[in-house]
């Protein structure tokens, strides 16, 4: 029986983990995927662990997905949303979390609007931290589940060509995806209007393309990101309609490509902006598989991290 371990105590970003870690997470997630498709979708592994989900930013999918993953591993779960808490009374991050930890919590799943919040916390408190998104920095579990979904659909990630389309500038999903896909040996391209592509992104080793059709003709997989209007302090393009015309994916474009590509979206979808409804609901879209895989991948991450704590 092989004995394996993650190389890290926290999951703060894809940057801090290596290819072996990612593969171990995927192999474990395969087993958990089997678990969540059984009549009884629960295993007792984390029955003596308490996990706090601390969300300083809105989230539906990620929070639900983490909570389900925790419950299916039999962990005790406490939820905390910043909007309804003492944070609005002026409490600092460390104080908030230390108070929660004083109630004997073993693991913290945190989303925070500032980049590096997870890193900061991991240096000051004892619990293990899972980053569920920090500002425009990283969203590691999303990248893992995206790569896991590609692996499931295409058999392997290595050697595949993936284009990430849209708001790269404000996207933590883009950064984590680029790092994760590259660690697994895929080629990555980013595509979007000049204003939404960060300067010097080529230094990460990605290709840059401003023409959607060219990008789609190059790729095996297209990951269509959401336009994050809430993060945009100024106007980066004239109008949503114009963005949709230049960078929106519709059935006609998809059908005119000379190969069949896979369409992904991390959600929530702005139907008619990044992709049209007929694409989102088409056979080539694996958006709902991504959501299903999200639970399995998060179970794997929590399980493997919990195994480290002694």
């Amino acid at each position, binding site marked *: 029986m092989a004995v394996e371990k993650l190389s890290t105590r926290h999951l703060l970003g894809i940057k801090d983990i290596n290819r072996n870690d990612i593969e171990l997470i995927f192999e474990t997630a395969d087993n958990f995927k*089997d678990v969540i498709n059984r009549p*009884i979708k629960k*295993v007792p592994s984390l029955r003596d662990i308490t996990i706090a989900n601390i969300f300083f930013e809105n989230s539906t999918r990620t929070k639900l997905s983490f909570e389900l993953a925790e419950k299916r591993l039999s962990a005790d779960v406490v939820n905390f949303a910043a909007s309804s808490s003492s944070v609005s009374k002026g409490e600092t991050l460390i104080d908030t979390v230390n108070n929660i930890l004083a109630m004997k919590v073993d693991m913290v799943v945190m989303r925070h609007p500032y980049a590096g919040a997870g890193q900061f916390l991991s240096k000051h408190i004892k619990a293990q931290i899972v980053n569920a998104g920090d500002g425009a920095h990283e969203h590691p579990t999303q990248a893992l589940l995206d790569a896991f979904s590609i692996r499931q659909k295409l058999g392997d990630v290595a050697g595949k060509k993936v284009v990430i389309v849209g708001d790269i500038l404000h996207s933590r999903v883009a950064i984590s995806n680029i790092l994760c896909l590259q660690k697994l040996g895929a080629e990555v391209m980013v595509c979007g209007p000049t204003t939404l592509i960060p300067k010097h992104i080529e230094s990460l080793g990605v290709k840059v393309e401003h023409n959607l059709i060219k990008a789609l003709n190059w790729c095996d997989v297209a990951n269509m990101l959401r336009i994050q209007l809430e993060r945009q302090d100024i106007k980066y393009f004239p109008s949503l309609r114009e963005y949709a015309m230049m960078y929106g994916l519709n059935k006609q474009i998809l059908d005119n490509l000379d190969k069949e590509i896979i369409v992904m979206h991390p959600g929530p979808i702005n139907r008619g902006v990044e992709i049209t409804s007929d694409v989102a609901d088409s056979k080539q879209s694996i958006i709902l598989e991504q959501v299903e895989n999200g639970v399995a991948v998060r179970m794997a991450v929590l399980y493997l991290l919990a195994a480290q704590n*002694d």
Partner: protein
Amino acid sequence: MQKRTLLDGQKFQITIKRLCHQLIESHNDFSNTVLIGIQPRGSYFADRVKHELSEVLKKSVIQKGNLDITFFRDDFRRKDGLVSASSNTIDFIIEGKNVILIDDVLWTGRTIRAALDALLAYGRPAKVELLVLIDRRFSRHVPIEPDYIGLQVDTLDSQQVKVSWKETEGEDKVILISESNK
């Protein structure tokens, strides 16, 4: 390190044949009985039992599945390292069936305790029985005893019993490994 052979060659084959005949005695034609091998090594044994049963019964539809107990273990976070999980392949209904759990070596009984838990996630069997090739007796941590036993042996906690199979290791053999005497 000392190695002593407990079972091999013709005796190994006879033991398996005997276990299969015992199974047939209480389960007739296996129409309502399924075999479940405990991953990873119990599944090799279960494959062998299935093969032998099919030959004796002249029937090739005996159902056999593999059960992984990794996520049901009671030593998670209590020992170093992590046991990597294997796959579950139970593509039939166990509800109302007689289930024969199969493992190569029974020692503390904790694996079987976990297996009983894991099995219930697939439904409520009518009856569960336990078949093991080697029973390391007098070393149980939980009150679990096998229904069918290939060979009972008395061992020390420091010793190790290893079963190898023709299909995977090239030879059917059971050996007892002891640390050299100090």
